[in-house]
């Protein structure tokens, strides 16, 4: 399936998003995300933090704050990625993305934190 974008995260993992997933799932269920493709790519490339979903195996969450436009500008952007093993490596697929007010304090474990970030 053709990738809409492919990007490397700060740990070196490759993450892709198919055009079908972007159009028919992500933007369909979260129409505000439609114009945020580059912001989603940037969130994966330079997140403020990455957390692991403690319930769903292989799912990791990329967070960045302060990059969304206008009325979303104080929100976090959350990009949900599902990883699958490909030989000795793993490949991530973006499954959804949306704006949220705060990072949930339960059900997730931070696995990577940006050194550039000055936290509130």
């Amino acid at each position, binding site marked *: 399936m053709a990738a809409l974008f492919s990007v490397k995260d700060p740990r070196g993992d490759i993450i892709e998003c198919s055009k079908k997933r972007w159009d028919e*799932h992500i933007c*369909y*269920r*979260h*129409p*505000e995300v439609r114009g945020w493709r580059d912001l989603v790519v940037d969130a994966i490339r330079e997140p403020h933090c990455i957390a692991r979903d403690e*319930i*769903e195996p292989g*799912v990791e969450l990329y967070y960045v*704050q*302060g990059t969304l436009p206008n*009325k*979303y*500008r*104080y*929100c976090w952007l*959350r990009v*949900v990625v*599902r990883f699958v093993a490909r030989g000795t490596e793993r490949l991530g697929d973006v*499954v*959804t993305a*949306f*704006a*949220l*007010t*705060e990072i*949930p304090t339960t*059900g997730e474990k931070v696995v990577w934190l940006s050194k550039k970030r000055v936290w*509130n």
Partner: protein
Amino acid sequence: MAEQEAGLELKTNRLKEQPTEIWVDYDREIDTFYLFLAKQPQPSIAHYAKDGCYLLFDPDSREIIGFQIEHFVRVFLPKHEELQPFCSRSKRPGVLTRKLQTEPLVAYKAVRNCVEGWAQSSHTPLLLRPA
């Protein structure tokens, strides 16, 4: 800025009304249930409440316009008696989803009952922190 520092509260007027339109969907890929009080998904901001449930609110009016529930089949359903009628005996997501979609009003009332307390609780008052 003063408004942001003081925090922003969500409005629950839509939850008190009988909905005229409901859109429901289930994403099997990430076990997530979506419900909008509209005929189609609307631009929204998610605010985490509890048990994998996000309140979706309109960024302009701050009115709650829907729900997004993660780990829906795996975690949320088993915890909530109100939703047991939507579980098939096999608990296969596809069967569950069709029933939720064919009876959206019943599904909405059941989900609303689950989250009603949270919408008024201390989880809800918002503080959107500047970056």
